[in-house]
């Protein structure tokens, strides 16, 4: 159906006004849309057919059956709505993912008087079904991340077909929390530490330094990263020691995204840098990142790599997801 463009029945603007973004929502008449489902429409068609046949054959029993089915249909409307209203949902923040992975938006559903199946989907993608029934349910809506960047949490369509599938009650809910999607990592050689500028396509191969195991302990010097301290040994009372890794280099690697880079080339470069950052942070090697005018000073903490990844994700961000 054409009107369900992008799986959305209504414009975003209108939706934002009608159902404001909020983390917790108790569904009320403002938030609920209800229409006969496709099955319901066929069911109505059957009722009409029965009515015509009953009239033409002057068959009262068929007419009675037709009215009975109409009664069931009518009741279904109320039951579907009544069952859905009062459902309380809490949307939790989704952890960042890479492009091509599945975004999981955790949901806590408080279904005090709701029964039947509840379906959750984003943009009509993979639907998740849960069975409600006087309980709290922890579940998640899922969606494929297709674009990098930081966006608003997409609207989650939450539906119910209770009780007979004749009606389709739904709401489009969204939280205020942002959704972060990093660029997809693309495998590439890790640049050497002394590389000063790293332009697109110029990643130079460096000596293999990807061994993860540490090979010795040496006394700690101030300034060295805290997470390299061998806490176990310190607890044993052997003093503050620092784990030294093979391939560990205190020299930092400079990663640069030139300002003039755009389009596919930029995307490719960002993906490669993402890969590099992932590897480097695994090896706990310090690196610095220059994104056009922005500069992130060298560091090797997890926080630093997260900040850098986020910066890569949001750099010259397109329309987003």
């Amino acid at each position: 159906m054409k009107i369900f463009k992008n799986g959305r029945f209504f414009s975003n603007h209108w939706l934002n006004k009608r159902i404001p973004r909020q983390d917790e929502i108790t569904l009320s008449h403002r938030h609920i849309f209800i229409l006969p489902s496709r099955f319901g429409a066929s069911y109505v068609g059957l009722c009409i057919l029965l009515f015509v046949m009953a009239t033409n054959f002057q068959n009262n029993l068929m007419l009675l059956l037709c009215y009975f089915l109409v009664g069931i249909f009518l009741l279904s409307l109320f039951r579907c709505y009544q069952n859905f209203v009062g459902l309380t949902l809490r949307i939790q923040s989704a952890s960042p993912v890479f492009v091509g992975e599945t975004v999981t938006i955790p949901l806590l559903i408080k279904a005090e008087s709701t029964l039947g199946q509840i379906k959750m989907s984003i943009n009509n993608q993979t639907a998740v079904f849960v069975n409600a029934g006087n309980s709290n349910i922890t579940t998640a809506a899922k969606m494929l991340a297709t674009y990098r960047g930081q966006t608003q949490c997409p609207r989650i369509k939450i539906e119910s077909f209770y009780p007979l599938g004749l009606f389709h009650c739904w709401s489009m809910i969204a939280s205020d929390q942002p959704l972060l999607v990093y660029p997809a990592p693309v495998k590439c050689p890790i640049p050497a530490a002394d590389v000063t500028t790293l332009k697109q396509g110029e990643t130079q191969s460096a000596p293999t330094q990807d061994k993860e195991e540490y090979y010795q302990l040496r006394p700690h010097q101030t300034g060295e990263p805290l997470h390299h301290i061998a806490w176990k040994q310190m607890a044993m009372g052997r003093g503050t020691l620092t784990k030294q890794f093979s391939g560990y280099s205190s020299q930092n690697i400079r990663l640069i995204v030139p300002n003039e880079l755009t389009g596919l080339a930029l995307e490719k470069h960002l993906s490669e840098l993402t890969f590099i950052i992932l590897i480097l942070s695994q090896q706990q090697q310090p690196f610095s990142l220059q994104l056009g005018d922005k500069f992130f000073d060298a560091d090797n903490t997890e926080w630093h790599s997260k900040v850098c990844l986020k910066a890569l994700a949001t750099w010259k961000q397109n329309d987003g997801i």
Partner: protein
Amino acid sequence: MASNRQQLLLTCCLLLSCIALFDVLLIWVSGLLIISGIIRISLLRHTQKHTITQRTLNLLAVLSLVVLFWYGWQIGLMNSMLNLLVLACAFKLIKLENHKDFLQLSLSTLFIIACGFMFYQQIIAVVFYSLLVIALLFALQSHFQPNRTLPDLSTELIKQISFAIPVSLLLFIALPHLPPLWQMPGMNQAQSGLSDTLNPGDLSRVAQSAELAFSAEFQQKLPTRTQLYWRAQVMEVFNGKQWSRHPYRLRQQQQLQFSQHYNPRVFGEHYRYSVVAQPTGMNLLYALDVATPVSDDVIANPSYQLTSKFPLVSTISYEVISWYQTPLDQASSFDLVLNLQLPPNGNPRARAFAKQLAANNPTVQQKIRAVLQYYKQQSFVYSLQPDVMPDNMVDTFLFEKKKGFCAHYAASMAYLLRLMGIPARVVTGYMGGENQSGNRINVYQFDAHAWVEAWHEDKGWVRYDPTAVVSPERLLYGLEQAVAYENSFLTEQPFSLMKFKSVRWLNQLRLAFAQMDYWWNSWVVGFNQRQQLSIISAIFGSATLTNIGLFTLGALGIILFIVAVYIWKNKPKSTSPVAVKYYLHALKILKKHGYQRQYSQGPEDYYQQIKTSSPLPVFNVFKRLHNNYMHYQYAGKPSMSPKRLKAELKQLKHVLRTSQS
């Protein structure tokens, strides 16, 4: 697969609904369905793992379609459509895989069940079909609510049904019952009853059935038994073998449907009665003597015959006035010529016999008496098991066998009268009936009868029943007595309760069933505008247009009322106690005025926030609400009454408004 339960139920529903349509479905179609049902069930029970491949299935489907197309011509459009649907369901059943298949199949099953009503309208059939519909709804429900237990689902379904039944009854009673919108292709049902031609052997076959033909309920008095000649159709053409209606009459009947009604001239006393007629697939209706219809869709015609505007595909009821003192004296010269027509040859002995009788008896009266006299004197026998008379039927019957059913007598007598120059015709219908309580007469198929009408210049068409001359028992007591000597009554239905009239309790049981059937047929199956208007008259005194409108609106109002009651009764109960409810309400009001409680804030933190950030009057009110809430949470009992809380909320709103302005 978690959906086993509902799939199994759906399969059973489909199988049962088709088994109930056994007469209508082609044998191989039902066979195919049963096989696919067995395959489905064994797949569901995991006794079989391999389903049929799509390719085999497609091949089978094409083959079946070709065969069905071939036979479709013979069984009529409606029946072949139904067969086609069942066939499609059978294939779908094998490939029942996803959600969509399930829904499609359930709708088709619902339709097949509904089609069952076209063929069976007895109470027992309706009970059976209702159970099927309920089972189907149950399957649907458990499909959409897979995690619920059976008792849960049952209560839910019972709730829905108990809502839908009164609604459907109200709609049924209140909504106008429309006439057919257009002519539907005929259903080739196995109909019992009179046919539109009369082969002497046919009627004795009809008389083997104990099925109800119609019931008539008289308003005041009942006619005597010998007056109960229910005219159905007039046969005016004899071709030497069978009597039939003249094509001109059929055209006339069609014309009468569209032009204004024909009204016979009537006078004298009358009976007024309503008839509930069982479906026959034909337009024939039944009435006594000269009848004028009261119901709209009944048409009288110049043969003093009543017909329905539409074929009787389901039970209908109509109202008639019979003027039993009025002679049937209207006939055109065409009628008289038509009723003298004879086949050019055949039956030579009868021709000679008629010539001889005519020579001996000069007047019409004498001629007729002479013919009847012949039947009386020649030791004729009334029998339900007459011999077959393929050639020169009249000769064989009159001069050799002398044993026949009423049709033989009527056919031969009318032939003899025509040979003697007296316009005569055969009338078929029913004679007699069984008296029921409440001025009601039930007429069964075995009451089928045929007699003769002969034209007299002065009296018009006069009824002569040669059967009554031969077997007065038939006239006075009915068929059972008349054929008691040969034990041929209902030989094909050995267990019919009709045969046990002598056993008192069985007979009472039978009469009670008949009573129930009558009620069912007149108020449910045959319910139409007439009954609707009678209900309206009973409520409002008269059935004017305003009253009809009021009635319909009233019924719709009651439906809305039922809906409202239903919604109100099923309102989700607020589970939070009063103290919590009012506290949350207070938070909402405060939020509106800019004092929002953060997620991280507990009630105590929030209390502190209000204390520091809001004006004193606001805080004072909130303090009381807060204390009440805390008291409830920790002491388990609120310190304020709900009334007091309400007042506090009002106060809170007030102070917030004044403090901000």
